């Protein structure tokens, strides 16, 4: 019915016009000083507790000068981020690196040597998940806390951490709600919009973002409830797919996916699910730092961790639970952590009868035509 289509179109337009909702959020939104971070094993709670805005570095710069600091075949996310620091990028009070991988380790080295006016710190994340590694990680998080206290010139109190943890948990829960919408309404909520909001969540002043996303989710709920009869659609038209990747924040890629009839039923990215899937349980019997350490260490796993088998079963469970019909594997180019496991993952998934599309993403240097053809062909295949 044309009238029905018209209503859907209007709603879709409103929903995907994020500028109307996220007025307070954005890179430059915060009045507080910011601390930059890179890897989702970094506890944002402590940055917020210290009175800073945690800003995840997205590296939105085209790589050019940074080529002279890193080899050609080196993590494009690291290079793009470094390019930002070389340029006129916003000021940070401090930077928190992690030893997540070889790329990050060398990035920290480069930053300390050639960017010496910004204090930087490295949080050591263990590769194992057991009692000893948890204690060890908690100890390292304490060092991170001390770093932040030095930046601030004042100690961080327990209640400050508790308040910050509540804010971050809130953010996690609301992002998960948003994920619920993209699963249910692939025809009105764009994949582009979804990831735009994810990015805002990672770079904005947390309280402002919470205000914005609450309003947005209220609107989503309202229009989808009110128009439920109009918005009914044949979901079969939208094959449920899963995206697996690391730091994938390629705007054009999401635009391509948006144009296709596909349902993002699960995403295993550190710019999305791996960021928000771990509410921190503040256990009164435990010390705060230990609770944070345990929450982060046990969140959905990055492929950097030692037990790849655990990661593979995580993926397989998510495929079964979300009735996934196809997997798009997005390896960041030159990312050893992702590229080695793919050889085995491909085999494991084809044993399950799940087709996999393998894409190597060269961050910020995207060959649209090639990727589009592959994605379209993959969906035609499904």
């Amino acid at each position: 019915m044309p009238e029905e289509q018209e209503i859907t179109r209007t709603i879709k337009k409103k929903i995907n016009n994020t500028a109307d909702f996220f007025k307070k959020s954005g890179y430059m939104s915060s009045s507080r000083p910011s601390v930059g971070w890179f890897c989702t094993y970094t506890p944002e709670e402590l940055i917020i507790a210290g009175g800073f805005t945690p800003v995840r570095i997205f590296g939105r710069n085209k790589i050019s000068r940074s080529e002279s600091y890193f080899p050609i075949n080196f993590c494009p996310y690291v290079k793009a981020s470094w390019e930002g620091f070389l340029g006129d990028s916003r000021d940070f009070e401090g930077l928190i690196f992690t030893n997540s991988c070889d790329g990050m380790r060398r990035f920290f080295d480069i930053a300390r040597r050639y960017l010496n006016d910004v204090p930087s710190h490295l949080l050591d994340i263990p590769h194992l998940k057991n009692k000893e590694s948890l204690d060890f990680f908690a100890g390292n998080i304490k060092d991170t806390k001390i770093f932040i206290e030095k930046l601030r010139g004042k100690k961080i109190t327990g209640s400050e951490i508790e308040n910050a943890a509540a804010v971050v948990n809130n953010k996690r829960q609301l992002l998960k709600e948003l994920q619920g919408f993209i699963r249910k309404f692939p025809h009105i909520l764009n994949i582009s919009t979804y990831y735009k909001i994810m990015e805002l969540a990672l770079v904005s002043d947390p309280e402002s973002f919470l205000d914005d996303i609450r309003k947005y989710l209220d609107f989503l709920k309202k229009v989808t409830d009110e128009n439920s009869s109009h918005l009914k659609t044949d979901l079969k038209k939208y094959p449920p797919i899963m995206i697996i990747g690391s730091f994938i924040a390629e705007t054009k890629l999401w635009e391509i996916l948006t144009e296709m009839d596909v349902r993002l039923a699960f995403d295993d990215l550190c710019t999305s699910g791996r960021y928000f899937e771990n509410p921190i349980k503040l256990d009164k019997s435990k010390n705060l730092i230990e609770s944070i350490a345990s929450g982060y260490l046990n969140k959905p796993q990055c492929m950097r961790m030692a037990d790849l088998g655990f990661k593979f079963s995580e993926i397989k469970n998510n495929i079964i639970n979300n009735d996934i019909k196809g997997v798009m594997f997005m390896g960041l180019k030159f990312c050893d952590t992702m590229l080695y496991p793919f050889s085995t993952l491909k085999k494991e998934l084809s044993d399950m009868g799940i087709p996999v599309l393998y894409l190597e993403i060269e961050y910020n240097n995207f060959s649209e035509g090639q990727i589009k053809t592959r994605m379209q062909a993959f969906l035609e295949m499904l």
Partner: protein
Amino acid sequence: MYTCGIDVGSVSTEVVILNSENDKIESYVITPTGSNNKNAAQTGFEKSLSQAELERDDITSVVATGYGRINIPFADKNITEISCHGRGASSLFPDLKTVIDIGGQDSKIIKLSNGNPVDFLMNDKCAAGTGRFLEVMANALEISLEDFATIFINTNDKVDITSTCTVFAESEIVSLIGHGEDKNKIIKGLVYSIADRITSMVERVGLEEQVCMTGGVAKNLGVVKALEEKLGTRINIPDEPQITGAIGAAYFARKIS
């Protein structure tokens, strides 16, 4: 009733008009793509109409494929060359399981089950293993590409070309010529090197018989022979391998009308 398939590739554009009643190809046209996709598609379309002695209105629907498939104004739909090559090739060889398509800038392996793609692989941002690779080498050797097949078949010995990168391979060849190596042996080595590259792609998706090769490079019998040797299987070649994608597109167009 007729449908039309248009494959707008990086080098050439192919148009096929297909009779829906008897699956007969009424006409086909191969024309250089040049710098304007739309013009090439339009010109090819008109030529193929006049060759088939048909009017625009006789065509019920048009499907575009190939890297320039988007924004062809008179196409009703666009479908990727992967699906189209699969569909086109299996219309020619019904028991097909593997399609090797080597075009000007892309090479791809498509795995089929009952004529439908179930897996595929495309080359990365690199000309190694594509028609362009052979073209660059033919230029460096100052020998026309058409002669490659005869030379390949009539030469017994080969010189190993170690570089797979187009740029490195070109300088390697220049230096081999400089050292007075026999050009024929170099050509034999080159053809094997492209066959090696393709073989490793085929192995990634897994070889299943029957196999067919499409795209412009399939016309180069030297490459076909070398590939048959490396893969240990016979390779089917369509009468006109270049139009396979367009044939597939024309078949898909039937679903629209």
